[in-house]
């Protein structure tokens, strides 16, 4: 920095010589200050950039490098680096297991996001219709579900759906489904996914609902008045005023939910560790169990990278819009 400020300073200092030494010092500091101002943003950004490169960039690069290595228990212990080209990718992409898990992840994400968006929107619109007291009550309920830590929520759902003494089985039994009295929810693929889906949807609806409600409060009242002057009924004003106004919000939220659900490692792993029989593994869990559990670290890294690629593909539409929007704004 000192080197950079020194050089440009010399010119005004020379010119000033004739003016006498007195004004030299203040002018020079002013010029130096201008230099510092030009550098200031980069200095201010430096810690954030350094952290990002070191703690995010480097692991990503490392992930890429590992995915081209034959790295199992033996190589790990002996600290060997064995490059094996694209073998890991070839093996992963040729295995039917990977494709089964990938399709399962996409379907799981799709089902969750559809449920979250539909019910979140409905609850949000309901919030907008309620009186202030009832709205506050529902808001508190939503905030409690939203705030619940995923790991605590998972243990609570394990308990709600417990085979013995679980509330859900008791209720189903009382409702006449006596075969459900001792049902083991975590015993089959479908019912395990059902429990995880309920858990995720329960925790995610509040975000959509509360933010959607907040968005509806920003719709100008005049728009509705204008619509009703034009003879629009409740439904028409909903489709012609409310929905167009909410569309950008709904689009953004849908894609955020896709990102969150696709990566829902915590709930899926904590509820049953991907069981029964590895049938509820979604991609992040699959990468963890292949790479870490079975100690094929290179293979696991290849799966991880492919997972990132799939996630990017799923969200590319949204990312493009966001990036474009940000460019227009700046």
């Amino acid at each position, binding site marked *: 920095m000192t080197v950079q400020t020194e050089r440009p300073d010399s010119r005004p200092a020379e010119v000033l010589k004739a003016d006498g030494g007195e004004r030299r010092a203040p002018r020079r500091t002013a010029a130096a200050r201008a230099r510092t101002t030009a550098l*200031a943003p*980069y200095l*201010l*950004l430096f810690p*954030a950039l350094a*952290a*990002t490169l070191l*703690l*995010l960039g480097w*692991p*990503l690069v*490392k992930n890429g490098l*590992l995915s081209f290595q034959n790295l199992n228990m033996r190589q790990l212990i002996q600290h060997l680096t064995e490059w094996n080209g694209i073998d890991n990718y070839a093996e992963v992409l040729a295995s039917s297991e990977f494709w089964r898990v990938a399709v399962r992840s996409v379907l799981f994400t799709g089902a969750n996001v559809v449920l979250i968006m539909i019910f979140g929107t409905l*609850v949000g619109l*309901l919030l907008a*219709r*309620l009186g202030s007291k*009832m709205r506050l*009550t*529902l808001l*508190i*309920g*939503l905030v*409690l579900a939203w*705030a*619940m*830590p*995923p*790991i*605590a929520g998972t*243990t*609570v*759902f*394990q*308990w*709600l759906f*417990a085979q013995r*003494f679980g*509330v859900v089985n*008791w209720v189903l039994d009382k409702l006449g489904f006596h075969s459900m009295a001792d049902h083991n929810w975590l015993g089959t693929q479908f019912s395990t996914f059902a429990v995880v889906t309920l858990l995720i949807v329960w925790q995610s609806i509040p975000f959509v609902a*509360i*933010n959607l409600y*907040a968005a509806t409060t920003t719709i100008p009242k005049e728009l509705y008045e204008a619509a009703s002057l034009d003879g629009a009924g409740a439904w028409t004003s909903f489709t012609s005023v409310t929905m167009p106004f909410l569309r950008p919000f709904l689009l953004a*939220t849908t894609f955020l939910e896709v*990102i969150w659900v696709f*990566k829902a*490692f*915590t709930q899926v*792993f904590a509820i049953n560790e991907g069981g029964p029989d590895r049938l509820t593994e979604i991609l*992040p869990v699959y*990468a*963890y169990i292949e790479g*870490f559990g079975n100690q094929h*670290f290179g293979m*696991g*890294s290849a799966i*991880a990278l492919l997972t*990132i690629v799939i996630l990017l593909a799923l969200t590319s539409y949204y990312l493009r819009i*966001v990036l474009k929007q940000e460019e227009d704004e*700046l």
Partner: protein
Amino acid sequence: MSRSRSTASRLRRIWPNALATVLTLVFVFPVYWMFATAFKPTGDIISEDPVWFPLDFTFEHFQTAVTADNFWTLVRNSVTVTGLAVLFSLVIALLASFALARMRFKGRRGFIIAFMLAQMAPWEVMVIAIYMLVRDADMLNSLVPLTLFYMMMVLPFTLLTLRGFVGAIPKDLEESAMVDGCSRPQAFIKVILPLLAPGLMATSLFGFITAWNEFPMVLILNKQAEAQTLPLWISKFQTVFGDDWGATMAASSLFAIPILLLFLFLQRKAVSGLTAGAVKG
């Protein structure tokens, strides 16, 4: 005719409230059941018919949870890691957000886009690579890498949200302070920082929640019991204590209470903070 119409209109007025009541119950019930089970005597927990409203209270399950091996060590670990991660990210983000919100310079757009992408970093699938890096640095079972990576997890969100908050403060305030003889850093500390306080609170709340709840990374990095954090302990509790639901729910309650309180306390700010950061940024 008129009577049926009045019933219809009453119905129209009532159904939103009825629906809202049912929904409130649905959303609250799991949280309620966690606390109810935690306070119930074991006899009421393992009963053929659920005891909906516990009349006998007991702290026995909390006793079990709190006296479990390493509980206080894990509390200390969680608090240390979370607190430091949030603090570091706030400081770093504050500097950067000031540059991004207030200054014009080359590459500014690129930086913002980079941080937006960083916000979506798939940490859950990067854990294998992170394990290798931490292992090579001989730092497994240490709180240092956890703190650093948690800081990085919350940094982009903190930075982008604070950028919004800084941008919302009128530039005139700062400029008039500078006219009055403050230097730019002084103007920042004396004028902007106090106005940023609510923003800092909301932002750090979300950083706190992310770091407090983090599970996959500590699962991989810290196998040693004394080096773990609370989420890992909660996830294993039921297995370790063999279907002791009372103690499991007590442990979950202890873990969830700080977050639930923070959320209820900061609800409004939380919502606007998250909207600003997540949807816009």
